[in-house]
């Protein structure tokens, strides 16, 4: 008998994806355990972001299988709403709704999508904004917040849906170095609380420190992977070495 809690929460098996004639993912497989922090690193155009978008079905895959909590998402009968309740996503450009305040941004989806009670959602949304250290910014519009603040609102907005897995797509890439830290601290706290996180990132220090497993992708394939300590010290594949030498 298999215990649900020991199964990988995300299981990706031999996923292929092309945009037109350009192959982006060429047979990617990986398992992510509950509570794990998986970091995907690699050069631009290696398919990292696409892989992340496949996990919540923003991008449909051509071939292969993606299981979230043992449910196949590569099927026409997929209920995207159910999937996206389980999988939250944070984007590089924050993508907050500019016409709504920080608080409203966090409250919108639970009210519109989950049809939850407004008063209860508001209490939770205020708590979430406090958790990401944005108390007092509830009524600010995204355009009035710094990049780091906007990104933390985006994280709170995602968390408001109570996801089981959080996907972070280069969430610090658009930030200046000082604000990178405040976002990373927020993600680290989430990880410490046991949230399953999948990060596409260029923050090697963060990957080493907070990650449980590092995947290096190149040309649509996972070239090498392992726990960060091992990975950064002993990566053996020449492509990995070349990449690490360039950025470390």
């Amino acid at each position: 008998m298999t215990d649900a809690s020991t199964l990988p929460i995300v299981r990706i098996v031999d996923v292929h994806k092309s945009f037109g004639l350009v192959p982006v993912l060429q047979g990617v497989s990986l398992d992510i355990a509950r509570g794990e922090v998986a970091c995907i690193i690699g050069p631009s155009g290696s398919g990292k972001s696409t892989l992340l978008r496949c996990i919540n079905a923003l991008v449909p895959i051509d071939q292969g299988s993606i299981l979230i909590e043992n449910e196949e998402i590569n099927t026409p009968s997929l209920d995207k709403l159910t999937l996206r309740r389980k999988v939250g996503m944070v984007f590089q450009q924050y993508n907050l709704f500019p016409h709504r305040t920080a608080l409203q941004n966090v409250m919108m989806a639970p009210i519109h999508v989950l049809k939850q009670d407004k008063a209860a959602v508001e209490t939770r949304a205020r708590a979430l904004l406090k958790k990401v250290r944005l108390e007092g910014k509830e009524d600010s519009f995204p355009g009035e917040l710094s990049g780091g603040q906007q990104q933390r609102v985006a994280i709170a907005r995602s968390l408001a849906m109570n996801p089981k897995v959080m996907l972070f797509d280069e969430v610090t890439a658009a930030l200046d170095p000082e604000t990178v830290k405040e976002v990373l601290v927020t993600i680290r706290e989430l990880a410490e609380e046991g949230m399953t996180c999948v990060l596409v990132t260029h923050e090697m220090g963060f990957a080493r420190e907070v990650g449980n497993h590092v995947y290096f992708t190149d040309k649509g394939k996972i070239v090498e992977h392992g726990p960060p300590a091992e990975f950064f010290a002993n990566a053996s594949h020449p492509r990995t070495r070349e990449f690490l030498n360039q950025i470390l």
Partner: protein
Amino acid sequence: MFGIDDWFRRLYDTSGINFTYLYDAYDRGRFLAGIVLTLELAAICIIASIVIGVVGAALHGSRFRVTNALVRGYVALFRNTPPLVQLFFFFFVLGGLLTFKTPYGTFQLSNFTWAAISLSVYYGSFNIENFRAGIESVPRTMVQAAEALGYRKGQIYLYVILPLAFRFSLPALGNTLVSLVKATSLAYAIAVPEVLYVSSEIWSDQLNVPEMMVTIMVFYVTLVSIMVYAIHRFEKRLRIPGYSAGR
């Protein structure tokens, strides 16, 4: 008693400047009726052209190729022909075809109705383009964010795309509506007794063309200024703090 009437009557007697509608009850009556008709025509056309714009832009964005082609054909036909020509086309061609006898008398749409239809259809084609441009300038990433939060297509339209698209299209919409209000004077050509038409009746009787022309210019400047002011106030109210479009 010395009132406005007497003052303008004396002005005419002493200087020959003849604002008949300010002292003559009959002229005043038809002039005011002309103003009211202009306002009515403008209001109807504003509403109808916006409705056509919203529906057209929505159909244009639908995934059915037929509706898409229909909307593009509509825009091509009505945006690319002169409004006066369209007015004559509607009134003389369609108006002729749509006149027939019924047991209760002759069925016929009034000149006013044809003017309202014609101007709405013309400016509706502009509003389709205004709203379409607004929808297209909503960043694709907003839609993705909403999708990632589990929003369905209709909800994305309602809560994300439309509120932003409407704001983006406001400046262009304002321009179109200003044009529309001024173009109501074209209804003159099919004898709709709007403000220009009644003025021409008055000056034919009273031979006071300059006075009436000055009056009409002042009337339109005032009307359009009020409108522009209202549109700006509206834009300001909807402005998103800290947000500049196209970022």
